[in-house]
């Protein structure tokens, strides 16, 4: 399947591409954020910025995408591309890249973006750097792809000097999305890519959407309120939920809280649980074992609430309150309600067990 394509004379490669992902009629956050960074890189290289949009009936989305800063969008419209599938999408990207030879291709590090990039880089035999947090152009014109390495303890500069295109993925919320300009003009190009029914090698039998109602997932939430052993009792997670509800966040837990049987394993953050990277991680009654850090240390901001001023988690806190969580949380909830103009009458009742 591979053909050593990536080693062709690199001077033939030009332009920056961004793989676009749709979501509920709009673009995914990560795609608009990538357009912003792609624009900067395209300008640095003096080349056009192109969005790639495989799908079915996506012209309106392509139009809208241009407003974020694209020069053109390549639409590949085919009923076989209606939902994301690894093989046909990889076929589309491989054929387009071979035809048009972009210098740089960026993907969102979403589940599908990683699925696609991993397959594609092996087919094209070219470099792909995962989860980049920063890009530069080096003196030779290569893309300097900067990513956390060794468990987030350092930043590695990855170069792909001989192969083209240079490919990289970027997680959500690493870059800031540019404002949408509905007056921006760009070109929409329809490309045909050969697909056969055999390319539909996987069948989607069922899809259960994560619902926000009562169950916003911590991986998806901008704000995560996480509880540890300090909560002392499963009932007290209601306090976390009350706070999370007011912030539009989700609740999670440390391993100790999960191992104590207080909350399900699906809420566990850390080495043996999930990794979250919200805009704000609120750690309540969590001392901060290394294993817990592994699951949350890349959060944009960390707020630690703990009665013990020596809790290790304070060392990586952006904000902290040293205090009794059973006083601090109800007070936070009360003040938030007051700031919002009082949707809730009176302070929330403190669980009797906590007194």
């Amino acid at each position, binding site marked *: *399947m*591979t053909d050593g394509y990536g080693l062709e004379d690199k001077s033939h490669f030009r332009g920056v591409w961004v793989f676009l992902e749709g979501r509920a009629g709009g673009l995914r956050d990560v795609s608009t954020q990538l357009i912003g960074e792609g624009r900067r890189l395209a300008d640095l290289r003096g080349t056009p910025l192109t969005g790639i949009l495989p799908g079915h009936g996506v012209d309106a989305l392509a139009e809208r995408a241009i407003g974020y800063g694209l020069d053109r969008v390549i639409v590949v419209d085919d009923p076989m591309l209606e939902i994301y599938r690894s093989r046909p999408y990889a076929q589309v990207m491989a054929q387009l890249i071979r035809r048009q030879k972009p210098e740089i291709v960026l993907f969102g590090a979403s589940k599908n973006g990683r699925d696609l*990039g*991993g397959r594609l880089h092996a087919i094209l035999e070219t470099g792909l750097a995962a989860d980049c947090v920063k890009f530069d152009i080096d003196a030779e014109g290569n893309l300097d792809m900067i990513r956390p390495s060794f*468990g*987030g*303890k350092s930043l590695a500069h990855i170069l792909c000097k001989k192969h083209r295109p240079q490919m990289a993925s970027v997680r959500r919320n690493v870059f800031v999305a540019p404002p949408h300009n509905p007056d921006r003009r760009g070109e929409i190009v329809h490309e045909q890519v050969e697909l056969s029914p055999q390319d539909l090698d996987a069948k989607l039998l069922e899809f259960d959407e994560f619902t926000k109602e009562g169950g916003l997932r911590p991986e998806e939430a901008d704000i995560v309120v996480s509880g540890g052993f300090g909560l002392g009792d499963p009932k007290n997670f209601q306090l976390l939920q009350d706070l999370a509800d007011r912030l539009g966040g989700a609740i999670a837990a440390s391993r100790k809280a999960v191992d104590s049987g207080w909350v399900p394993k699906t809420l566990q953050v850390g080495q043996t649980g999930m990794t979250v990277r919200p805009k704000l991680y609120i750690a309540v009654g969590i001392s901060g074992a*290394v294993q817990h850090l592994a699951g949350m240390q890349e959060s944009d901001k960390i707020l630690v609430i703990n009665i013990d001023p020596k809790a290790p988690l304070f060392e990586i806190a952006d904000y902290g309150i040293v205090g009794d969580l059973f006083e601090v949380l109800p007070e*936070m909830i009360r003040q938030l309600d007051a700031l919002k103009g009082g949707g809730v009458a009176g302070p929330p009742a403190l669980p009797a067990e906590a007194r």
Partner: protein
Amino acid sequence: MSGPPSEMRPMRIIVCIKQVPKAQELQVDPVTQTLKRVGVPSEINPPDANALEIALRLKDHHAAEVVVLSMGPTSFDESLERAVAMGADRSVLLTDRILGGSDTVPTAYALSETIQKIGGYDLILTGEETTDASTGHVGPGIAGHLDLPQITYVSEVRIVDGTIRARRTAEDGTEWWQTNMPSLCTVNFGCNKPRSPTLTGKIRVKRGGVIVHWSCADVGIDPKKVGLLNSPTIVAKVDTIRLPPRAGRIFSGDSKESVRALLDALIRDRVVAL
């Protein structure tokens, strides 16, 4: 390539694993700027252990042979022996100096070639990513090389009427996918509790013969396609600075006052919007 397993032939599952330094022991060699691997406690990459557990559960319910594959130095035998002690039938270590420094492109290529040499496979499982490099590129890369269906980020795999059904955690929900065999799945970190080695398993390891070592020449791997010099990417440098220092604004004292000060800061910094 093989078709669906017949009644006569047990299904063959190949699980790709990597041995990684234990998460809390990650150390960077200041001279080579690569991960220190010597003298550091190691383990099976945790998501790979979850993949192995899925394979062993399939083996519990179906006639299946579980073959564990790894690529690396002979010190990786430790993890392969553990995998066999947990219940895998046998293991293969692709080990050759010329593989040193391979990035994900040659790694996916070399593993694909080795999988083809093992042959007769119906299902390939890998972890979603490694805890040391965290790219998640090798599993899909193998599927790309071998032109197999791939289902990434799965937590559960079933065999139904000779097809693979897998539950995938997608960006916005949970999906159930069906593919023919052979196919490749990458497995979610922490989706199950990998079993412990058994006494019988340990005895099998002790008797020996559960690991074979293959060189690139044994497998027929093109030396011009592997190793540091044939990897598309290089690590040009590593900034050893830790994560950006955090502001560390800690409030204490009266909770009413400290909460007020905190919320002021959160709103002013636009961390929380009301």
